[in-house]
């Protein structure tokens, strides 16, 4: 074809060294194009052969939502009014982290064909796991909005400003964590299994299931409350709750067997959330810096260790 011939004829002997350096960098730096291609690859591989396709990725969390709502909302009695709304707003953020962590852990080990045969910026592998989780986040957000409308929740308002903050925080944190576990799992293959245990405990401790206002009520200490919500996933979940939960001042009802008389949310205002967001974001950025450094140092050996 004519295009190809022209390209070959463009003699690179005349390409200045600076241009060659630039073209070399295009192969060693993380580029948006490469990131999106890898996310597309993962999505296609996962869904192209399943008949339900994307619907699966939505049914799965909805099913989880239904089970948790019945167990904690009805049987055990969390006492949280409109519990499914509370639960799902938190789960949305948690799923980004959970998905990015579990996929991120195997992102390098599972792509050994690429790592061993092609020179490319390997950092895109854990980042594409985050991208994959974010795609599902967007889809689940759509479902969530339908749920909100079904519960006749009035969610339009100033509190929605908490949502982009939550999204930024959980994305940065998930990226940092995915990069870290991806590098660790190459060296220590049981990282992915230990990670499952860690994520299990983390999930229950992040305030996804119980009213996070309980932390302040139980500890009687605003300092400890702040420490608890310095945990980036917990902070992101709190921000999501504040953004979507219909009442900032709701208290857990006495009807359930759960503890009554506590606020559902840790704080009714906005300032507290923004402050916690700042603290958690700094923590995330510190981890990101550290994880990236570890990854860059280790990646030279990935091809051999796989």
């Amino acid at each position, binding site marked *: 074809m004519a295009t190809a011939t022209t*390209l070959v004829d463009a003699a690179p*002997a005349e390409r200045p060294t600076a241009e060659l350096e630039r073209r070399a960098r295009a192969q060693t730096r993380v580029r948006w194009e490469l990131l999106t291609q890898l996310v597309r690859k993962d999505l296609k591989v996962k869904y192209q052969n399943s008949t339900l396709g994307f619907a699966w990725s939505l049914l799965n969390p909805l099913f989880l939502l239904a089970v948790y709502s019945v167990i904690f909302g009805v049987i055990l009695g969390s006492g949280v009014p409109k519990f499914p709304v509370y639960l799902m707003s938190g789960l949305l953020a948690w799923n980004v982290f959970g998905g990015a962590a579990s996929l991120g852990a195997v992102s390098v080990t599972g792509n050994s064909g690429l*790592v061993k045969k092609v020179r490319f910026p390997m950092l895109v592998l854990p980042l594409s796991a985050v991208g994959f989780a974010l795609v599902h986040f967007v889809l689940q957000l759509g479902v969530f909005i339908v749920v909100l409308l079904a519960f006749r929740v009035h969610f339009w308002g100033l509190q929605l400003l908490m949502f982009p903050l939550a999204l930024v925080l959980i994305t940065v944190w998930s990226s940092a964590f995915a990069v870290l576990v991806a590098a660790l799992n190459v060296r220590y293959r049981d990282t992915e299994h230990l990670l499952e245990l860690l994520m299990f405990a983390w999930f229950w401790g992040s305030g996804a299931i119980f009213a996070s206002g309980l932390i302040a009520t139980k500890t009687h200490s605003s300092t400890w409350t702040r420490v608890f919500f310095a945990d980036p996933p917990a902070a992101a979940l709190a921000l999501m709750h504040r953004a979507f939960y219909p009442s900032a001042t709701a208290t857990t009802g006495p009807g359930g067997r759960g503890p009554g008389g506590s606020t559902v949310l840790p704080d009714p205002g906005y300032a507290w959330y923004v402050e916690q967001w700042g603290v958690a974001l700094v923590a995330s950025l510190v981890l990101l810096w550290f994880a990236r450094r570890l990854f860059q140092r280790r990646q030279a050996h990935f091809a051999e260790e796989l």
Partner: protein
Amino acid sequence: MTDEAPVISAYDVSKRFVTKRRETSLKESAVRRGLRRGPRIEKDDFWALRGISLEIGRGQTVGLIGHNGSGKSTLLKTLAGILQPDSGSAHIIGRVASLLELGAGFNAELSGRDNVYLNAALLGLSRQETDDLFDSIVEFSELGDRIDDPVKVYSSGMYVKLGFAVAVHVDPDVLLIDEVLAVGDEAFQEKCLARIKGFQEAGKTILFVSHALDIVRSLCDRAIVLDHGRMVYDGDSDHAVRLLRGLLGVAELPETMAEAIKAEVVPLAIEDIEVAATPGGERLYAFGQGDPLAIRVHLDVQMDEQVWGGGDVTVVVMTGESTPLWVMSGGGEAHVRPEVGPWIVDFVVPVMPPVRGPFTVAVSVRDSASDRVLVARQFENALAAPGDIAEGWVYVPYEASVAQGIRT
């Protein structure tokens, strides 16, 4: 062009592979650290590359040849930046397209089309660039409608065609090719070779590994010969190919061979040796202690005094582990004059020394003027002396006595 920075450069690159892996689980690692044992086991290392230095300038096509396991692919991967050298440094400037293996980087589940986009993105292209090239890639690959089939149903030939099509379309500055052309039908190979020639004319830099020595000779002016991870020759491809063909007959390449090859001129060949009791006598293998031993070396001198001034023959009798037992270097008597034709050099040992075991005989010829090794060859298990080498290579008479008591 000469004052430009080389496109591919390596400085004193060594690469070691550790076959016994360090502990790979966090649990195990924690336990070991707790026990304060040595953290790593580093037995069974082997050096895949040792002290390789090279520079390849723009527009050169260089062949990389050597027998299996000589380190060719490791060198290519190290240059490509996939493997990290243990010491030294390797660097390439420009866009690198590497064809290290059939369909490297292809995902079996995805269609050919998706894989083209993924591969192009890995090679540093933007989506727009790939869109523009896509039709041409498909045409070159000869896949037609099958481009939309998942690549797991492709034949190996189709894999190569698609991989090669992508690699040549991304407008690389440097092309690294590892023996992939061997697959695929002849017509396609022709097409690939034509494409490579087109690259040469366009002034691109190509480094390729091949066992097809004739292709190396026709495509490259320069070739690099690797042997056991060392670079033994870098220069004229005709000469490199001749050297490798000569080497392939030799099981083990001794250290001195590297020097021989660097001399570039090989004016004679070591044809054979004969081991007997007397020079020219009936061939023997086993020799008892005190027996006479004669080693006859057959040489074929191929060049006359215009090229060289004659050489001195050395014979080394070694253990199976290549430890020299004794050296016979002639001292002037074993001098071969630069006269074309067959030569015979005899070494006579009147009394076989008190040794045991199978022995290797290494023969080398040094240039009399420069003292450089011109040619060397080993003959494994060429002769033996009966006895169990578990008792040592040498018979030593001794007496032992026993007494009860304390040390004084």
